[in-house]
């Protein structure tokens, strides 16, 4: 049983199946992307039990019973998460393939600590790869979202 975005998914998978493949192919949640399957690019980042993880490096069975959050669960109905808003406003995406990974990476970090300073945000954002944006607009988006999240907190 996988608890994803508050919904239970009963799936039967081989022990070797990654969490990324399981989310995408067995749960139908294709918002989590797979860019390298080597743990380098971070496109597959999801939040498991409050922590951002590379879903390509985790077996689905390891996530059994733990709360999992994917990009599909980030918005609250029609209301976008502050990070989603900020990525749009700051042009933090072009092709959008890396975006779910960056969003979940930043969501996990900022929900823990919305007061991250610029250096910490740079370290955070450098965990993942983006080929389109050159990163500066992603940094700007995460910083802007952090301010909003501080106010909301």
């Amino acid at each position, binding site marked *: 049983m996988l608890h994803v975005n508050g919904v239970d998914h009963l799936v039967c998978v081989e022990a070797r199946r990654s969490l990324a493949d399981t989310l995408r192919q067995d749960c139908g949640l294709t918002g989590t992307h797979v*860019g390298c399957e080597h743990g380098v690019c971070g496109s597959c980042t999801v939040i498991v039990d409050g922590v951002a993880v590379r879903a390509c490096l985790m077996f689905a069975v390891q996530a059994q019973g733990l709360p999992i959050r994917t990009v599909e669960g980030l918005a609250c109905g029609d209301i976008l998460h502050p990070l989603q808003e900020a990525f749009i406003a700051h042009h933090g995406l072009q*092709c959008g393939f890396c975006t779910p990974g960056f969003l979940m990476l930043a969501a996990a970090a900022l929900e823990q600590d919305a007061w991250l300073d610029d250096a910490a945000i740079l370290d955070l954002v450098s965990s993942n790869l983006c080929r389109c944006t050159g990163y500066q607009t992603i940094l700007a988006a995460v910083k802007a979202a952090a301010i909003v999240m501080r106010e909301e907190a």
Partner: protein
Amino acid sequence: MTTWVGRSIRRFEDPALVRGQGRFTADLPAARWVRFVRSPVASGLVERITPPAGSVCITHADLVGVRPIKPMLDRFDYVPIEQPLLAKACVRYVGDLVAAVLGTTAADAEDIADQVLLDITALQPVMDTPSALAEDAPVVHAGMSDNIVVRAQMCTPGHAQAWAAADRIIDCDIRSHRQSGQPIEARAAHAAWDSSGRVTLTCTAQMPHLMRTAIADLLDMPEADLRVVAPDVGGGFGQKMSLAPEYALVVWLARKFRTSIAWVEDRRENLMASFHSRDLAISVQGAFDAQARLVALSGDVLANVGAYAPYPNTAAVEPLMSFAELPGPYAVAEYACLARGVVTNTCASAPYRGVSRPALTLAMERLMDKAARSFGLLPEEIRRRNLVQQFPHTSPTGLIYDTASYRETMELALRVADLTRFRQRQVTARVEKRYLGVGIATFCERTGYGSPAFAARGMGVTPGWETVQLAMDPSGFVEARIGASPHGQGLRTTLAQIIADAVGIVPERVRIIHGDTDRTPYGWGTFASRSLVISGGACLIAAQQLHTRLCRVASIMLEAAEADIELRDGIARVAGTDRTIAIADIARASYHGAHRFAESPGLQETASYDPLGTFSNATHIAFVDVDVETCAVRIERFIVAEDAGRLINPMIVDGQIRGGVAQGIANALYEEIVYDEHGDILTTTLADFLMPTAHEIPPLEIHHLETLSDASIIGAKGLGEGGTIGAPAAVLNAINDALQPFGAELDAMPATPLRIHDALRAART
């Protein structure tokens, strides 16, 4: 009147993408999955392929009647080469396609592929251009007399005389090591057969219409039986422009097994067997007069094009572009060049953002810096003396440079840079053993060129024009169906801005339809910094036609002269009065009350645009700090002054520049595809092929000039590649500036710590 053009409105693409609701090829479920068995050796004869018992394994022998990929170039000096979809008798690089196996899941197919036994007799491979050109080199393609696939040569009549009269000759030999575009979404294809016999191929493509034509030709099937869809595409950078043999095979499999078949490339395959690029050695010699003006230029271009030729561009694209565009932004009259493309046992080279221009710009910009030093001039001064300033300018290879601002753009960058101050700081830093450097790159970028430019290359397939079908529906919304195929460029937004202004509605009422051969007119797709200029031009023409039509109908409905009708913000108004009607009402009447107007019913307009092309231009200035102990390079500051004509959406323009410069910096410092001497590829993960992270890419200072040229009817020039073109030369010039106290020079990229270390050592001994 512009209301929307020039504004940084939010992109229409984004809401779905940030919600994880993008639709990418790999998201589609399939009945069967294919895994390709690839050659483990660089050159060899396939003796036997033994699949595990009970498996479905397709080899060349199964592909009866399937044609090889054979891109043509109508030039006497080009040797066409063939690529069978699966290896026929020989394999020609590590990663070459040998067989295809099917499984019920991707993992299942991969397991089966691992059990396929390949019996291949390995042969001596040729890995680089020197060994491929050696007298006794084995030929990569049997039947060729040597390994040269294209050889272009020219010399202007006055070259020898100018050369003889020159004050001095400056040499520069640069080396651009092999690159790869590496979109974060690797390639993928999904072919679904339906009971009518038709196949829908969904794939990561930049040119869906041409994919359809090409695959139908290869498989000898009616084009009407194939639909090609490019859904959301996770970046292309050229890699998804050329025809992938895998896509054709996936279609073949879907037809053969009458089912849906998926292939999702993994990163290792992408690094090893998707297209590579820019494996180039360029030697330039500049003949300068006593005033440091470049009077004659000689170039020698050697391109390692890999084992096969990409369709449609052919294996000549890199050498011939270098040949045609080497003089760059400089007003040199006399030119001689020899450019050769050489096949080797490596992955095929194909266009990657900038194509060969990052390398040729490196050659020219290093030449200018070396010449400046020889004349005792500052780098900016020698450029002032040589940049083209009279427009239109005809280059020695016959390219026509339209109105631009080469000099003004450089001066703008220099003002921002304040080099006097920096050079003082550079001197004081040296005392503390810190080595700072500044590097300038000026360049022009040929963009938005239509069919005449491709015809001049002699391409068997001559791309260029674009068509748009524009329809306003009865509710007053506009749908624009385009042949271009964006994959991150934000064209759904920028084209909507152009159309909105031309029609007099808000961009939210414009939908851009792309990437589906069933729903869009034939077109060439998105590559070569062309879509905004050419598709945008076609959109503008069609939107103006629609505007005229709406005015005519409005004039009847409002009982006024057509010339007095103004369309704005969704309202038609008789100028200077309060007599108005909503454009949506005109639309409704055009369909449901068409009998009232002497017009064909409905509101459909079609337009095509096929321009000659336009040159945007830019200056990049990089400031670096080189640690001579570790040989690490830190970019302290990076300035871009760019003139791409009218900015349609400045936010998107800056995004293109940022992304391009990031790839340029990657090219300059980090990324390299490496083979060993046996032909094995050593860079097969992103931990070996070092794509930069946020730590490596500095903030950019971007400045714009907007020179309007009549070479583009929307006023905008293309700029998708410029960032990638200029950045490597700026960074390398800056490193060389920093290394000056040691007398060290480095003309190869990427400038890895090892290469910098070797350059320092060479200078010491």
